[in-house]
């Protein structure tokens, strides 16, 4: 009896300890002076543990502390739900705080445009972009297409014969990156057949021949390409990537399709963050981006360097939004 009660108490303790991580929300207003954090900083990953956002946040926090770039402790908190919307709503409630950051990527533009979040990138303070990732379009090794133009020619002739699969729903990243490139190649984007496999089984559907094209991230294709199961017809980067196998992937651009899609990833703070704090973080993120330790992290996960400071980042985001909005409107998905 006592033993059991002890075990129960122990577990309650663990759960509570992990649930009640630091909740910081006070604001320091001292705009002209230099700003420095005086208590632990929280970085929210608006998704579950183990995904891209979570990994980026955890790696940034780790290098910040280990390389001594930021002395104060940095805690990563997962706030999953609504494709990011739940985490964004949480940060939106931390107005002006200089201690609540979050990591984000194109969904913060796509999700509000799809009508699934009341908050978009305008409701936050962009601090710095850190890395870039790119999309890849893969087909089976024995498929008849050897480049994107062959594929798109067939899609123009007989759109019903080709199905594209992705992990996320229409109007989100896997779909939009394909549509964007296809449109630039002159395909009627409204006729593209796209199915979603939310359990991450899209690759299965490609391998067993249920679908013809898999729209995904570059790094997800590498193992299967090495094993000779699939081939990558094109990637959405500006230039070829570096690295074994990766450098073999042709870009859409070099195939005469003049457009790109960047899966950028960076950090934001709440709205109205103090300008001294913005400046502080901008510099610290730059230091992080230039550090050898973070270069190793990038290499390990196959990420590309793409630093932007706060104002460049904001301008970039506004342009991205315009681009994607017109694409969604054409697809009839805009809200």
């Amino acid at each position, binding site marked *: *009896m006592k*033993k*059991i009660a002890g075990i*129960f108490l122990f*577990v*309650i303790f663990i*759960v509570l300890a*992990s*649930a009640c991580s630091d909740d910081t929300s006070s604001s320091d207003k001292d705009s002209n002076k230099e700003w420095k954090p005086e208590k632990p900083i929280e970085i929210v990953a608006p998704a*579950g*543990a*183990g*995904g891209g956002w979570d*990994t980026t946040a955890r790696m940034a926090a780790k290098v910040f502390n280990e390389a001594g770039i930021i002395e104060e402790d940095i805690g990563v*908190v*997962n*706030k*999953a*739900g*609504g*494709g990011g*919307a*739940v985490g964004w*709503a949480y940060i939106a409630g931390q107005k002006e705080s200089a201690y609540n950051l979050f990591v984000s990527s194109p969904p913060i533009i796509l999700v509000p445009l*799809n*009508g*699934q*979040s*009341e908050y978009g990138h305008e409701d936050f303070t962009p601090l710095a972009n850190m890395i870039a990732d790119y999309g890849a379009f893969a087909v089976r090794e024995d498929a008849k297409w050897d480049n994107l133009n062959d594929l798109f020619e067939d899609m123009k002739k007989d759109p*019903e014969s080709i*199905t594209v699969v992705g992990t996320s*729903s*229409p*109007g989100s990243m896997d779909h939009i990156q394909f549509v964007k490139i296809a449109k630039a190649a002159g395909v009627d984007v409204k006729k593209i*057949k*796209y*199915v*979603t*496999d*939310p*359990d*991450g*089984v899209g*690759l*299965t*559907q490609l*391998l*067993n*021949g*249920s*679908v013809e094209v898999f729209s995904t991230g570059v790094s997800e294709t*590498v*193992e*299967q390409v*090495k*094993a000779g*199961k699939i081939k990558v017809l094109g990637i959405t980067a500006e230039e070829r990537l570096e690295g074994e196998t990766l450098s073999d992937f042709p870009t859409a651009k070099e195939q005469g399709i003049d457009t790109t899609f960047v899966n950028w990833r960076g950090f934001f703070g709440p709205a109205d963050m103090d300008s001294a704090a913005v400046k502080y973080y901008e510099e610290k993120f730059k230091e992080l981006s230039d550090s050898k330790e973070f270069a190793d992290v990038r290499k*390990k*996960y196959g990420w590309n360097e793409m630093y932007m400071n706060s104002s460049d980042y904001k301008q970039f985001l506004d342009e991205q939004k315009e681009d994607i909005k017109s694409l969604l409107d054409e697809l009839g*998905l805009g809200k």
Partner: protein
Amino acid sequence: MGSIEGVLTGFQVAFSMEGILFVLIGVFVGTFIGMLPGLGPISAIAVMIPITFGMDPTLALVMMAGVYYGAIFGGSTSSILLNAPGVSGTVATAFDGYPMAQQGKAGKALAIAAISSFVGGTVSVILLMLLAPALSSVAIAFGPPAYFALMFMGLTAITSLSEGSTVKALISAVIGFMVATIGIDAQTGTQRFTFGNANLLEGIDFLVIALGLFALAEVCTLIINRKDLSIDNAHKLGSLRITKNELKEMRGPMTRQSFLGFLLGVLPGAGATIASFIGYITEKKISKKPEEFGKGSVKGLAAPETANNAATSGAFVPLLSLGIPGSGTTAVMLGAFLVLGVQPGPLLMTDHPEIFWGIIASMYIGNVFLLVLNLPLIPYISKILKIPRPLLISLVIMFSVIGVYAINFNTFDLYLLLLFGVIGFLMRIFRFPAPPFILAFILGGMMEQAFRQSLTISNGSLAIFIQEPIALSLLIVGFLSFMFPLVRLLRNRKKERV
């Protein structure tokens, strides 16, 4: 033969001092977290990921795999003792495990679960070792039409899960279907029944419904029936010993479900849940005494417990040999691999045989450890039932709340938990069975997606379901097993009239 060398390397890793130590740590943490109501393998793996930073990848993964199957192994405990399944794979365990515990045979129920889990786990590891490379083609054999057919087959279980009124079972299933549609529709990106609430965008989590309909509803019933407390047997632990007869009864389900569970586990997306349900209904269908199922049947407990553990090993086939996660849990596992810089996939076996075979070989030891850890603990664990009722009830409520809160750290989920607790309680009062609800909820979502993927691919033609041989045969089996009880019912009625 490269693979024999690989297998030997694997055993070397698994039987090294560190190997054994980390397997032990993994299965201990896994089975312990798995035992807690509301916490399952996902929480267990997520808790352990940060600990693996900087560890040797092989040992770390051997440990993480132990956490995973350890949590499934331990998951039966809260289903049996408290009617509070912590993962979808142990819902079917509660069907007969909980009644058995209520009859004063809690110790025996836990022992049956432990032994079935052990057999399912061990047989499937042998299958995994022999067949993993060959089975990777089976893992991708199912396209959307075949998945639809598989889910359809699973759904025919509704008729056999219903005690009493079939109509009420069907109504219950339809509500389950409806609840499954809440959230963003994956095929169009449209919101369904979210009423603009961001908390509903990703739908309702399985755990909210399972703990509401099973655990909280049970708690309400206990409170209402408090007068009967003095006469019930539930606080008795009973003997642990399994009689020869019972062992004989278990043998059939354990053998069949080890194989069937493993095969279903190999299919991405099917996994332990479907394996345990299909295991339960096949055993009920072929049993000579199907009326015992749902009332504390030995077979009804052994079948899902064998199947869900066998399926867990099966799930390693697509994960290790293709790099495809078949479920939420294996997706977190994949995350654990990537954190350690190991990319599972077709090249893992040749590039890192020590990891590929090390994990598999360690599962033998892991399963033995689990049995040795769990059996002696049973008398202590089942003492939970001796806790005075008012205290036990509070503990169940508390753990349900913690479990649900731990999914997203979102208080909105707690209101939903309460709502489903009330719904579950009302369903009991009006005698609507809960199992069809939860089955329809689990399968309904996947079934709908597979159906619509199929139709998109076929440009709207239903012929796609009969053109594919796997889909067609599964549909026929499903249809027959659906019609069978009806035909029997009609025949019985005719007899009565005559």
